[in-house]
């Protein structure tokens, strides 16, 4: 064989292997839901658009998924962004204030809000790459101050938005599916192209896997990290737009509240290790949908929205434990001991 051929089969098999467990977990939740919560999988149509619990999951899961996509890149570089919730609030505040109070037309206000999110991400990235702060500490600063900034923007009020275009983002549907899903699809495609058609994906994974070796191989480590945080900020801002659209207002106290854990969890479930390195964008989307299904299931099982975080936290810990090599070794030892005990 003179001409080496690309091995698409190998690559596809690798992707399938990486996504196997997230998909199995998602299926498990859906099955449990179908059994215990009547109507969990029912889809109907009203006025030509699909409705039902799965569609709701898709709609609200898309918001988490968009944040998770940005978070995936940051985690892949070996970092973490705790400020996404605060950035969601800031972006929602900027959108609402620009549209409702300043009278800025929405085609200008929306990019402006995303830009603000990008700036917030760049700020985090600067703290990480220039000041060399640990990512947790660096993003903690904005986590503390972010909601204050958002309230400063809105003047502490809940600013309502009556712009129909903004309303359509979260509450409209196209081709039968919610617009948020199409937005997610667009963000995913854009990021996938950016990451896979350029070398960014490779360089991000390298930096996260071994940053000393990456630097010696000539990888522009700082720019790569900066890029990841900027993307994360932009994604959080898009989620802020969606949030603002859902409730037709910017409620900075509640917008994006506790979103950071959902996003981190979605990334971890999706198969990206918290230590950085290889990452899977599609895995994070599956992880986000899984989280949203779980939230929705708990809701349908009459678990109140306030209690719902507790079982979610259990899932987080379980998933992290399963990823932990120490835990695996521990379980392996126990299993072997039991085998030895039963001759």
């Amino acid at each position: 064989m003179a001409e080496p051929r690309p091995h698409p089969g190998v690559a596809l098999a690798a992707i399938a292997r990486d996504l196997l467990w997230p998909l199995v977990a998602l299926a498990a939740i859906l099955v449990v839901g179908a059994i215990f919560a009547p109507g969990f999988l029912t889809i109907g149509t009203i006025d030509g658009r699909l409705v039902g619990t799965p569609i709701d999951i898709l709609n609200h899961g898309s918001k988490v998924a968009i944040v998770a996509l940005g978070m995936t890149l940051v985690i892949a570089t070996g970092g973490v962004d705790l400020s996404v919730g605060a950035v969601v609030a800031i972006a929602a505040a900027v959108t609402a204030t620009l549209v409702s109070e300043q009278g800025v037309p929405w085609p200008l206000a929306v990019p402006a809000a995303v830009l603000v999110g990008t700036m917030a991400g760049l700020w985090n990235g600067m703290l990480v790459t220039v000041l060399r702060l640990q990512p947790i500490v660096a993003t903690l600063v904005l986590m503390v101050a972010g909601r204050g900034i958002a309230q400063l923007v809105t003047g502490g009020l809940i600013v309502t938005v009556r712009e129909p275009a903004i309303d359509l983002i979260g509450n409209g549907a196209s081709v039968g599916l919610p617009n948020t899903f199409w937005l997610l699809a667009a963000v995913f495609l854009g990021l996938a192209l950016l990451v896979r058609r350029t070398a960014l994906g490779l360089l991000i994974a390298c930096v996260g896997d071994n940053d000393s070796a990456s630097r010696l191989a000539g990888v522009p480590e700082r720019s790569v990290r900066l890029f990841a945080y900027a993307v994360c900020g932009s994604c959080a801002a898009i989620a802020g737009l969606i949030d603002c659209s859902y409730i037709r207002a910017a409620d900075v106290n509640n917008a994006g509240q506790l979103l950071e854990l959902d996003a981190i969890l979605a990334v971890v479930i999706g198969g990206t290790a918290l230590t950085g390195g290889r990452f899977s964008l599609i895995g994070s989307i599956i992880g986000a949908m899984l989280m949203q299904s779980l939230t929705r299931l708990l809701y349908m099982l009459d678990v109140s929205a306030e209690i719902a975080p507790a079982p979610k936290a259990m899932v987080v810990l379980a998933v992290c434990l399963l990823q932990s090599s120490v835990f695996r070794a521990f379980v392996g030892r126990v299993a072997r001991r039991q085998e030895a005990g039963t001759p």
Partner: protein
Amino acid sequence: MIRERQSPPERRSLPHRPRLVPRLDPSVVPSAATALVLVAAFLLGAARYENFASWMVLRNLLVDNAYLGIAAVGATFVILAGGIDLSVGAVMAMTSVLVARLVEHAGVHPAVAIAVAILAGMSFGLAQGSLIQLFGLPAFLVTLAGMFLARGAAFALHPQSLGVRHPFVAQLLNDSLSLHIPLGPRGVVIPITVVVAGAVIAITWWTLRQTPFGRAVHAIGDDEHAATLMGVPVGRVRVMTYAIAGGLSALAGVAFTLYQQAGDPTACKGLELDAIAAVVIGGTLLRGGVGGVIGTLMGVLILGLIQTIITFEGDLSSWWTRIVVGVLVLAFVALQRGVDAIASRRLTSAA
């Protein structure tokens, strides 16, 4: 100065390091900055507002921040040992509701309920610390999950605020158990929560400065590898710091319950950030090893002063607090980085 006895009398001069400036230990700089900020904040308030420098304002400063102080002391242990605990506020809410529920619905005596709540908090911290230590999970993730868990548990215990009307609680709060200080025109009454907070600070100060355990906390935060080689039981000490943080969060939750006379599952959202901010502004290094509860006390007072000043300002909205706190945290973290960089440069040039 070190004088090695056998060293030749003449000292070889090192041309690249002039010794004109006396050596200031760079790790003191953050603590000095803390004291400076505290004094400056107070003077600013006193200069701007007429009634600022009154006993009443000072008393309220203490009363309003007592529970934050207790929680921040817990966070100090964890951060000194090089970890982080994001579950503080949620554990407070959980224990606050637990106490209210036990007293009001189960008819348990408040003293017993308080003991149970503190034990629950300690066990919670113990569990978090064990996950972190035994399975090598990142501290921020475990305690973030812990935050959700505790918050969910708080709502599961009781979905709304639940008033505590037991006579014992009223007795705890009434004048008989408070400190009366003859200052100002009508004297100042310091409630028991402040007294407890003071006792916590005194005891933890002693623990950290004067006991082998406290020194081990400093040691593992400063250089975990060296501490292991020197025979410090790193795992046990680390788990203990999380248990202490859990227990003190619970105590803070109890103090909050007394302060509000109610258990509230929505209480103390984001208080963990205030606690961490107080620790950092108090001069404790976030990477561990340097700092202490006196700094944390000053940090809490700074946060309280900022709040007070913004209240006095009247037309300034309260969210400025978060922004000022964020800026202060950033300033102190940057200061710590600078100090680290200077210290390491000094060490290499001394080599």
